Structure formats: C-alpha cells, structure tokens
C-alpha cells in the first residue's frame, strides 16, 4: 500500500495534534495555535519568502506562494512589516488565526470534514479527519524514520521540532527509545537550518510563557 503524501508541515502538525478518529485536539487551543502559527511561518521560510533575523521576520520575496494559507500570512506580514517581533506574530497567529487557516486548507483538500453538532442552545462546529490512516501518517512517518536511522527532510524536522515544542511528543513520540531520541536530536543539530531552529525555539518559549501566564 502506498503511503499517503507528505503534506505541508502545518497540516501534518494539525493532524498529529488531533485524535485520528474523533478529531479531538490533544493540545489546548493556545498551544495548538502557537504550534500552527510557527508551522505556517516555517512554511514561508521553506518557500523562501521570509527570513528570521534575530527576533525579526524579514520578507525577502513578496510573491504569493500559490497556497492560500501561507499567502494570507505573508500578506499580513507585508502590511505590517518591521513593526512586530516574531514572538508577537506567534501570539497573534495563535489567537485562532493559524488554526483557522490550516483547518480551511485541510478541509479544501478533503483531509478533514466539517461536522455540525446541534446542541440545545447552539450548533457546535468541529472537524474530524476524513481518513484516520492518513491522519495518523505524519506521526508514524517520523517515528518510523527515526527508529530506522533514516534522515528526515527539513519539513519533517520542522514538524518533529514543533511536536517537541508543543509537548505533543508525550503522545506521539513516547515510544521512541533513548537511542532514537538521541538520533533525532542529532539530526536537529546537524540538518535543521539555524533559522528554523530559532523559530521552533521561539515557539517553545511561547508555549512555556503561556503556561506561566495561565493562558495555556
């Protein structure tokens, strides 16, 4: 059986952060938002549209990416260029904006389905994975490659980094043994571009901050 295709890192992170059958989030909304926000910014770096210099996001190419979610973020970055540091952008994207963009992208691709649940007073909208095999694939892929000592590509290193930064590793990487973990950490140091390392570190710090300020 052919493996499902590799999705953009934010989509993979979204699927990893949700129950593969019922679609329930494994993360608090704030933490999920920070992870997905960082993933979208990371995608823009992979598209070579944005650089992270110290704590500033610098636009190096204004052209749309051909993908609605990242283009929307790029457009906002362009409109308010140079006014806010990366931590403020993460905080902003985490308010539901990143989650919304990624949900729409996944729904358009038919990977998650919108479900409406009629309650007594209101209708609750949620998303469930269209196919639980596909939804579980990103985490499985990371686990398999790491335990086989295979190299992850940069997009998967971004995904794995954000899995650690959001604390999702307690769910999805718990089965890795110490040797596998060391191997993954070694890949982070050797194969993961410094700019993305810093982005993930900022996301992780923002997650910790949210815990301290009782927002997580």
């Amino acid at each position, binding site marked *: 059986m052919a493996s499902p295709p590799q999705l953009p890192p934010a989509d993979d992170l979204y699927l990893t952060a949700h129950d593969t059958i019922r679609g329930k*989030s*494994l*993360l*608090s909304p*704030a*933490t999920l938002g920070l992870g997905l926000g960082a993933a979208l910014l990371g995608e823009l770096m992979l598209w070579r549209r944005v650089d992270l210099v110290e*704590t500033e996001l610098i636009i190096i190419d204004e052209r749309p990416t051909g993908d609605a979610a990242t283009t929307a973020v790029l457009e*906002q970055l362009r*409109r*308010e260029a140079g*006014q*806010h*540091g990366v*931590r*403020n*952008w993460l*905080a*902003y994207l985490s*308010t539901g*904006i990143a989650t919304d963009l990624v949900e729409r992208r996944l729904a358009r691709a038919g990977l998650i389905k919108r479900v409406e649940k009629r309650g007594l007073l209101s209708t609750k909208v949620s998303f469930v994975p269209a196919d639980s095999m596909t939804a579980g694939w990103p985490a499985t892929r990371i686990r398999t490659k790491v335990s086989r000592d295979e190299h992850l590509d940069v997009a998967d290193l971004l995904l794995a*980094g954000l899995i*650690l*930064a*959001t*604390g*999702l*590793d*307690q*769910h999805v990487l718990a089965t890795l043994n110490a040797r596998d973990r*060391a191997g*993954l*950490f070694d890949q*982070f*140091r050797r194969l993961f571009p410094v700019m993305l*390392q*810093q982005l*993930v*570190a*900022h996301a*992780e*710090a*923002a*997650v*910790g*901050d*949210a*815990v*301290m*300020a*009782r*927002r*997580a």
Partner: protein
Amino acid sequence: MSSTATKPPGSQLSDALARDRLGVAAIVFFMMSAAAPLTVVAGVVPTGLAVTGLTGIAIAFLAVALVLAIFSVGYVAMARHIANAGAFYAYISQGLGRPVGVGASWVALLSYNMFQVASYGGFGAIAQPLFLDWFGVDLQWWIIALVAWAMVAVLGVRDVAVNGKVLATLLIAEIVVTLVFAFAEIFSDGFEASTAAVDPGTLVGAGSGALLVMAVTGFVGFEQSVVFSEESRDPRRTVPRATYIAIALIAVVYAFASWAMISAAGDDVVARATEEGPELFFNLAAVQLGDVALHLGHILFLTSLVAAMISFHNIISRYMFSLGREGVIPRTFGRTVPGTGAPKNGSLAQSALGLIVIVAYAVFEWDPLVQLFFWGGTGGGLGVLLLVTLTSFAVIGYFARNPQGEDVLHRIIAPVISSVLLLVMTYLAIDNIAGLLGVEPGSTPAIVVPASFFVLMAGGIIWALILRGSRPQVYAGIGLGARATTTTGGFAAALNETDQPR
C-alpha cells in the same frame, strides 16, 4: 519585545493582541486572591495576638505597605526589562548573580509551600467547630484538611483555576464583610479607640520584628503582579498601578480591621485572642450584626482559605515548571499535560508534600492552628521578606549595569531606600524569631525556621556552582524562565545536548 508599546493605528496584530490584554482591575484581583483578606484579618491577626502578645499590628501593616510600595518602584521597573518577571529568583539571578538566584529559587519554593500547607491547617482548625455548629458533625481537623487537600490536588493536576468572576465576587464579598464587621466592632459596647494598635513606637520596640513579619505575611501575593507584564494593556502603566493599588488596598483594609478588632476587645485583647482564637474577629461584631452576618462571615472565611490554598498551589506548580524548564530542578517538572497546559508534575509534588505535612501533624498531634497555620504563614512571611530584601538589592545591581530606559528614581533612589529599610526589617525579624513563633529563644523552632532558609540558600548556591562547571548551557539559562529560547524545554534541550558532558 518593545513592539507592544508602539501601536500604529490600524494594526490588525496590535488590535487582536490588545483584546486579550489585562487591565488594572483584573491584575489587582489576581494579586489579592493570594492575599486572602479574611484569612489575614480573622486568622493571622488574632492568632498572632495570642502567640506574640503584641498589639501594634495595625501600624505594622501601614509601615510594611510603605516599604513594599517603595520597593515596588524599582521592582516593576526591572520587570519591564527582564524575562520571567514573575519570580523573585529571576531578578536575583540577573542582579546578584546566578548562584544566589538558584538559592533564592529554593527559598521561594519553601516559602510558598509553607503558606500553602499552612492554609490546610487553618482550614481544618477553623472549619472543625463550624461544621459541628452547622451540621452537628464532629470531625477531626485533619479529616477536613484532607478533604480540602484532595480537592486542591485534583484541581491542580487538571489545572482548573477558580473562575475569575467567582474569585472576584468572593474577594469583594470578603472585603465588604471585613469592613462591615470592623465597623460593627467600632459601634460595640466595649469599644475604646486603641492607641497601642497604631503606636509607631511598637515598630522600634521589643518584638517589632515579629510584628513586621506578620504584616509581610498579609501582603504575600503582591509580587505576582509582574507575571502579567507582557499580558497587560500597557506594561509601563498597568502593572505599576495595579501593584500600588493592591498594596494600598490591602494596607487600609487590614490596618483598619485589626485596629477595630483590638480596640473593641479592650485591654484584655491578648487574653481574649488566646481564648477565642480566630473567632475573636467575629465574636466582637456578632452582638451588633446577628447570626446571619456571622454565618456569612464564617463561610467567606473558609472560602478565603480555599482560594488561598488553590492560589498558592498554582503559584508553586508554575514555579517548579519554570525551574524545570531551566534545568535547575529535574526537567520532568518542566513538562505539562499537552491538552490543558497544566504543569502536572509540579502540582503532584506539591500535593505529595501537603499530604505528608497533614499526616505528620495528625500523627504527632501538633496544633493545626498555631503550629501549622500560624508558624507556616509567618515562616513563609519571613522567607518572602528575605526574598524581597535580596530582590531589592538585585534591582540596584541590575540597573547599575543596565541603566538604559529608566530614570534615577526607579533605578537608584527608591531601590536604595527600600534596600536599607528591608535590611533593617530582616535583621529585626531574625532577631525576634522566637517571639514571632511564641517559643523560647534558642528552642528548636526558633532555630529550624531561619536555618532552613539559610541551608536552602547555601545549597542552591552550591548547586549553581556545580551546574556552572558541569552544564554551562543550563547555567547560562538560570533565571530566564520558560520564556527564554536558551532554556531546556524538549526542543531546546535537544539542541543543547552536545554542550553537556555525557
């Protein structure tokens, strides 16, 4: 990080972030929930009268408020410049060096834990006669304490904060009840305006250190305002305002209520406090107010203790989270439950300690009110006084090296004044420790309480020096908290691994 201050019109990002920001009132409420007005006025003050025999508590509240307000000038100024502003040890690490900072972090953990477990003793001891009165059930104090403990443990692991509106309502009700009772006491028969309660002479006389520590105990929680530096609407104004308002509010309510109580009780106040304990505040007003008010007062007294125990539990679990992320204590404390963000391991550790203390007091039949509630509360107060003093010096040290962005008042004048005053207070407190605890000078509690702080401080310093040699990456991140990118969360730890010896 300064970009929060600049708000160009029409910035979607600034507008979106501003919606979530906290105003002065929200921060004041948060600070005061740990301070728990009724717990202090009806619990700490009468117990303190009985244990120490000192009546100058009202003036002590005002004096401590003044010193803490001066201290806060430099404290909130430094909060604008450093990460992890919620924790004293962050200031101390950056102002006096990382080793002292680690020592301070251990002292802080002990102090906050003393407050937290003290509230179990207070709750058990105070609820016992009330439950007998209300429901006709005669329970051991420790059974009641264990029920409260179980509730705090469950809420802590699930990280259920008490709803902000509930907390605010309770707090306002508490303050109203405190003031109404205090006024009722003024109009009671035996009332005679006490000069002893407000005599500044008591602040230099024998036992002054004990009074000052009791007063500091009432203010603990004020330091939490700066946690919200980044979350506030305007970091330059909101946090300082909230801090000063809370200190002033606490001072006025506490000083007034304790003055009214001492005045109403008349000359034999110490004897009555010994006999009636925490009931004194209520008994004095009961004549005027009747049963309904009395029951309401008692209910709020208990909810105030519950709010305090939950509040300190959450402060401790987050403190441990922050230290765990830095790698100063085992990294497992730096983990949270992904779905809720609850700092679970810190919470479990705190609950384990609480259980041990309650069981130990039950087994050895120690007194829950004096030996747990009052000793724990005032011992914690002494610890916080030590931390505030060190922090005050740290503010001077920090601004001596980083003078940018603050004027002379914030950098030098206020911190120097508060450092001198706090140093005097600390000296008096340690000198008076036996009087504070109501024991003979040189007896075990009078030595153990201050010594434990110094042992932890020394231990922390040594541990920091070990880290400097063996794990320089961890050492470099001390005091930066969970927010800094150099600290050891899961991912940052992965990057730093090579820098540690295998």
